[in-house]
C-alpha cells in the first residue's frame, strides 16, 4: 500500500506548527471521488493533508480499516459517500449509515476524540462541499494535535 511507505517519514518539523496532520479519506467511487475530481477541476483549493482511498461504495469500508488507519499513525479518518438514495448500488450507504453511527460510538467509548472520525455524504456535483468538508476537518484536527491513541509505536 502506498500509504505504508510515506507514513514512515516521521514529521521532523521544528515545532508544533510544523506538524502536519495526516488524514485518510475513504471516497466512494461514484459520488465523493467524482466530487473531489470536480473540486480539482474547478481549481478549488484545499489543504494537502488528505490521502484519498477510492472504494467502490462507502458500504465497502470495514470498521477494521478505520481502526487499522489509526494504528498506522493517521490523525483523522473521513468516510464519505453518496447521499442516501443516490447510491450506485442502491442500499450501500444505508448500511454505512448504521455501521458508522455505531463505530463512531465505539471509538468514542474507547476514548478516541470524536472529531477524529467523521462521515459525510458528498455527491458527485458537490465539489465545493468536498473542499469545505476537507478544509474544516483539517482545521479541527490541526487544532487537536497528533493522535497518540491506538498508534502503533513499535
Amino acid at each position, binding site marked *: 500500500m502506498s500509504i505504508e511507505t510515506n507514513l514512515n517519514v516521521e514529521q521532523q518539523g521544528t515545532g508544533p506548527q510544523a506538524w502536519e496532520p495526516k488524514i485518510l479519506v475513504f471516497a466512494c467511487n461514484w459520488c465523493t471521488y467524482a466530487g473531489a475530481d470536480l473540486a480539482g477541476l474547478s481549481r478549488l483549493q484545499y489543504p494537502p493533508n488528505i490521502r484519498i482511498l477510492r472504494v467502490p461504495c462507502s458500504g465497502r469500508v470495514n470498521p477494521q480499516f478505520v*481502526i487499522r488507519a489509526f494504528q498506522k499513525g493517521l490523525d483523522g479518518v473521513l468516510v464519505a459517500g453518496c447521499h442516501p438514495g443516490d447510491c450506485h448500488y442502491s442500499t450501500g450507504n444505508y448500511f454505512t449509515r448504521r455501521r458508522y*453511527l*455505531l463505530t463512531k460510538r465505539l471509538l468514542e*467509548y474507547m476514548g478516541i476524540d470524536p472529531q477524529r472520525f467523521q462521515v459525510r455524504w458528498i455527491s458527485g456535483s458537490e465539489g465545493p462541499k468536498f473542499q469545505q468538508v476537507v478544509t474544516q476537518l483539517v482545521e479541527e484536527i490541526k487544532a487537536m494535535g497528533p493522535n497518540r491513541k491506538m498508534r*502503533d509505536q513499535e
Partner: protein
Amino acid sequence: MNEITQKMRETARGLLNSGQVALVLGWEKGYPWYKSAPAFIDRGEDVDRLVFDEFCHNNLSKYLLDLVAVEGRIALFVKGCDSRGINRLIQDNQVKREQLYIIGIPCPGLKDPDDAAGKKQGDEIKDAAKCQDCRYPNPVVYDLLLGEKVPVAKRSSETQALIERLEKMKPDERYEFWAEQFSRCLRCYACRNICPACNCRECVFDRATPEWLGKANNLIENQFMHLTRAIHVAGRCIECGECERACPVNIPLMALNRKLINDIEELFGEEPAGLDPEKKTPLGRFELDDPEKFM
C-alpha cells in the same frame, strides 16, 4: 434446582432410549463444587451425570457447530440466554432447527464462581455478572419447557454501572481504562471460541494472507482484536456473558458488548439479538429514516 435435575434426567433417558435423539447436550458436575461443565450424553445409562445448578454457565449452543455431521437429532438443554444462541445460529444458517430437540429451562439466575472460590458450600454467593439484570430468563425457543416460567426481576447490574461510569469519563481517562484492560489480554481466544455469535468458518484473526492480526501480544494487536470482535458481534451478541466469564484476566468484555447493544437499541430501536430467527441482524438491515446524527 434438583427438581429440574430430576426432570432433565427423565427427559434425557426417554429421548435416548426411544432413539428420538442421537445425543443429549447438558451439564454435569465439575470440580471444585462451584464448577459445572458441558456434558455430551449418547447412552441412556449415562443420564445420571446430568445436573442443573447455579454454576451451569456454559452456553451449549456453540457446540452445535461441531455437531452438524451427527446423524439423527440432537437434544440440548438451554437457559434463557442459551436459547437466543440457537436462534442466532439458525439466523446465520449454521444449524437447522429441525435437527434440534430443544429443552428449555426457566433460569433462576446463576452464581459467580470466582466469588464462590473463596467460600464454602452453602455460603451466600454473589449473582453472576450476566444474570444481574437478565431480561430473558425464560427460553425464547423450545420444544419442551421444564417447569414454570420465572418472572423477570428488574435488578441493577455491575456491567451497566461500569458503562455509565465510563461514559461520564473524559476521552483520555476512558482510553487509559481500556488500554490497561487490553494490555492484560493473553490472546488465548477463549472469548472468541466460547461465543455463539462468533461462528465464521475461518476467523479473520487466523488468516495469514492478509495478516490482519499479528501474532505478537501487545496493546495494538489486542486493541485491534477486541474492537474488531466487538463490531463483528454487534447486533448478534445475546448477552450470555460467557466471554467475560471465560476471560482468565477479568477483562470486562460485556461492558464492551452491552454498550453496543444499548447503542443499537437507542439508535435504531432494534430488539436484542436472538429473539426472532427470521429477522435479519440490526447491522444487516436498515430503515429509510435511520438517524443521521453527525453525517
